[in-house]
């Protein structure tokens, strides 16, 4: 087990390295540079000398390969570089935004699980009944509406009919003012959670259906166990694997930030940070965020792997490596 763990952690490193190389090269493929992005059409006013002095200032004057190794060296020392836009260390900029994204992800996934799991199990147990059909239709509504539409509608209804808008660009953190914070986060979380609940519901339904036909369930049934116990003790536990998979994927995805929802609800999260960093060609920040997101992602995958093993003893970690 410990050997497996170390092996998995060692396997992290090439992934992160791969991410860093991929990011570093692709972001430089994109036309336009930080200076142009910063100055807009007025960058045409710059003379060559002015331009060069800006390039030296941003460290853009060195060859890309050298820039990469300078950056990588910094990363190994825990220094992700300086953000051109924010004039602060990249790591500080990211850490300031990350709690928003983390909280949003957790709230959204919780909401999705609260809606999706019960409907999914019910739909599977009462397969092809009216509950099944209506439950699915409801969840599919969530799936079928683009999140920017749901977000826009929520904001419209709140502002026009209720004359409230909990977050008008004045985000407060959970520690500063918990009730304000929750009121600001709940609607974006619903926007994201509503969409994801459909995936949870479907995956749950599908997995439970599958499990219910397995031999051991038949055995359990034939032993005369009540349906409720069969489902609770045997079916659910085994049906959880695919649900864990998609929840892992979704959390990883949400931790990468959700630009659209953050834009609409004016939340200072990682997604908006990344989007702005890309359009402003703030290379150090883009690389930093990408690496940070990748790190989270790999971490969550690792956790998901452990959960598989925990709930399904048949997957042996010896085989995995």
């Amino acid at each position, binding site marked *: 087990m410990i050997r497996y763990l170390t092996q998995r952690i060692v396997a992290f490193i090439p992934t992160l390295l791969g991410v860093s190389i*991929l990011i570093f090269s692709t972001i430089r493929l994109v036309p336009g540079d930080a200076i142009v992005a910063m100055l807009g059409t007025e960058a045409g006013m710059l003379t060559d000398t002015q331009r060069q002095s800006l390039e030296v200032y941003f460290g853009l004057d060195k060859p890309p390969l050298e820039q990469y190794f300078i950056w990588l060296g910094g990363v190994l020392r825990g220094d992700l570089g300086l953000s051109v836009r924010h004039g602060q260390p990249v790591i500080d900029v990211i850490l300031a935004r990350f709690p928003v994204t983390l909280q949003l992800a957790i709230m959204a996934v919780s909401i999705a699980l609260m809606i999706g799991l019960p409907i999914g199990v019910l739909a599977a147990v009462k397969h092809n009944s009216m509950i099944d059909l209506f439950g699915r239709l409801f969840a599919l509504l969530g799936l*079928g*509406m683009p999140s920017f539409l749901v977000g826009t509608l929520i904001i419209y209804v709140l502002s026009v009919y209720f004359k409230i808008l909990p977050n008008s660009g004045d985000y407060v953190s959970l520690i500063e003012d918990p009730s304000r914070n929750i009121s600001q986060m709940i609607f974006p979380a619903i926007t994201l959670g509503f969409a994801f609940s459909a995936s949870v519901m*479907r995956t749950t339904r599908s997995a439970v259906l599958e499990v219910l036909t397995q031999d051991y369930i038949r055995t359990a049934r034939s032993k005369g166990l009540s349906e409720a116990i069969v489902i609770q003790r045997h079916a659910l536990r085994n049906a959880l694997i695919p649900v864990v998979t998609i929840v892992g994927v979704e959390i990883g*995805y949400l931790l990468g930030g959700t630009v659209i929802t953050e834009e609409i609800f004016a939340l200072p999260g990682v997604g908006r940070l990344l989007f702005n960093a890309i359009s402003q060609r703030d290379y150090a920040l883009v690389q930093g965020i990408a690496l940070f997101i990748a790190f989270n992602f790999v971490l969550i995958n690792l956790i998901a792997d452990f959960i598989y093993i925990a709930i399904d003893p048949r997957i042996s970690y010896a085989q995995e490596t």
Partner: protein
Amino acid sequence: MLKKHKSTEVSLIRRLLRNRSGTLGLLLVVAYALIAFLGAVGVTPYPTLEQHVRDRLKPPSAQYTLGTDLFGRDIASRLMEGAANSLRVALLSVTISAALGTLLGTFSGYIGGLFDTLLMRIMDVFFALPALLLALVIVSVFGSGVTTTVIAIATVYTPIFARVVRGPVLSVKELDFITAARCLGMSDARILFRHVLPNTLAPLIVQISLALSWSLLTEAGLSFLGLGTQPPNPSWGVMLSESRGIAEMAPWLMIFPALAIMFGVLGFNLLGDGLRDVLDPRLRGHKS
């Protein structure tokens, strides 16, 4: 419940039609495909790009069934061509990512060992990259358009398919019947195609139907950020995001594309559900 699925002779479609959600899904998807076909060959009430400047922002009427947009273009016609464009993006990107992802996921999971580790690490790299970043970079480098939208969506979804398929493969290959097959001296290829792959089919089909609807939504999201299908060509996502500013003034601009996307997503999902029920080897009653 299981008894219903006993007969194996009935054709796939027939069995599908016996399934409530399958029937509904099939209907929606066929209707969608038909509309998209008409839109693609240009059988629309008006040419989709024709601007009737004097009839700008007209609500639905006998002349313009679903109203007109900012330019006085007929919404109904644009929805029809939009169906074709959206469907093209969805089908292409999902086909590419599902094929590639399944291939990689199956081999990775079945062969295991170093191969699995290596492949999954590479998938991890793509997976771990923020999807938005991938899409933005691809679109910025190659310019926006149908092809780049497809590449962007496919790149993001391939690792997801690989992962989704690999999970069940790992699970299935530890099952008794695979071990038994191996003991009986079956070749790997045979085991793979006869026993392992069919067992990944159910989650795969669910995933494909989900991915089709996702790509409809992703295309809409990319359009919201200005990265999707290029104007003046319509897609549902473009129409929806164009409508955002003025939906209050002209709600029909938002309602119809939104309904179109919802029914499209609903159709793919219900069909996926139905197919899953019908195709699942165990639900079908003859165990491999």
